[in-house]
């Protein structure tokens, strides 16, 4: 197989496997676009957020903060805390990108979202994909990026026409994909314990500000998994 054809297939595969995420993100893009407009933000600012920040939860929170007249450092700090979980994704995928050029790493990191992380780490879980996985990763990135911008524009232009979009349940596509990716991983007790603790803490912390509940859940889950794994090893004859 020729190299360009191979690369194109990986790009397409990455984008195709991201389709459920695109469906899930669509309503949020529309809601963001329309919400930002109704909050009085200029069109260039709304579009810039989706193109330059490209992080849904922090974009929504920023609308609220800007509307309330919050100071710049406050908005920056909030953005930092809310998006902190992306550092975990960065650490998790690091070994697959460390051999790549600076240009690749800058690009792949810029477009790293929850959704692309889930899809790509699932892809890399298969050892065969380690060498050329960055093309697949890029395909997922570009699909999410174009999709997010497209639906943001739709929200800006048509937002008022779809007031009930949030109630359609399209976000379940993303939930389903995440569940589908996690479920097969729950094959040993440390992993099961990780999921139970992470889920529990996430529910407890669901109302905490700045998505701190999520970070606590991730940290607690990882710690539980490691702890149980060590305990079981020590217990074995």
């Amino acid at each position, binding site marked *: 197989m020729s190299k360009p054809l191979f690369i194109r297939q990986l790009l397409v595969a990455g984008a195709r496997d991201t389709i459920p995420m695109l469906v899930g993100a669509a309503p949020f893009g529309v809601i963001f676009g329309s919400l930002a407009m109704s909050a009085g933000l200029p069109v260039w600012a709304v579009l810039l957020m989706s193109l330059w920040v490209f992080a849904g939860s922090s974009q929504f929170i920023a609308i609220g903060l800007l509307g309330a007249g919050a100071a710049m450092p406050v908005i920056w700090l909030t953005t930092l805390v809310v998006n902190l979980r992306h550092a975990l994704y960065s*650490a*998790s995928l690091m070994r697959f990108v460390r051999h790549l050029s600076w240009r690749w790493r800058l690009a792949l990191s810029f477009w790293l979202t929850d959704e692309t992380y889930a899809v790509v780490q699932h892809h890399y879980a298969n050892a065969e994909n380690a060498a050329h996985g960055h093309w697949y990763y890029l395909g997922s990135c570009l699909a999410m990026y174009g999709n997010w911008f497209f639906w943001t524009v739709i929200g800006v232009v048509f937002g008022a026409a779809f007031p009930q979009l949030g109630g359609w349940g399209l976000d379940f596509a993303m*939930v389903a994909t995440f569940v589908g990716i996690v479920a097969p991983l729950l094959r040993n007790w440390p992993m099961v314990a*990780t999921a139970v603790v992470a889920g529990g803490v996430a529910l407890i912390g669901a109302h905490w500000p700045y998505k701190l509940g999520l970070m606590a859940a991730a940290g607690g889950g990882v710690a539980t998994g490691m702890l149980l794994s060590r305990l079981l090893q020590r217990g074995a004859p």
Partner: protein
Amino acid sequence: MTLLLTLLGMGLLTWLIRLSFFALGERVTFPAWLIEALRYVPVAVLTAIIAPAVFMPEGPQGAVTLNPYLAGALATGWISWRYQHLLASIACGMLVFAVVRFLFPLF
């Protein structure tokens, strides 16, 4: 002008967070315990994102409830765990979600 600066800063910070470990390149190696900890990150983080969406679809102020999201998630989870087919599990889950939603339009 402040608005532009605010947005530029938000994006830059977000990029730096995402770049963080990617920037380390090949010079740094992780200690064994950290490599092991990273193995649990996907399950921990994805479950942390799923749990509120599945058990509290009405939002954090709502109680934990039985609902179409939970029904769909259980369907997807079961098929994915048992048959290891991602696309089929997602499709089935969405079907169950739609059906339960249709039957119980309170949601």
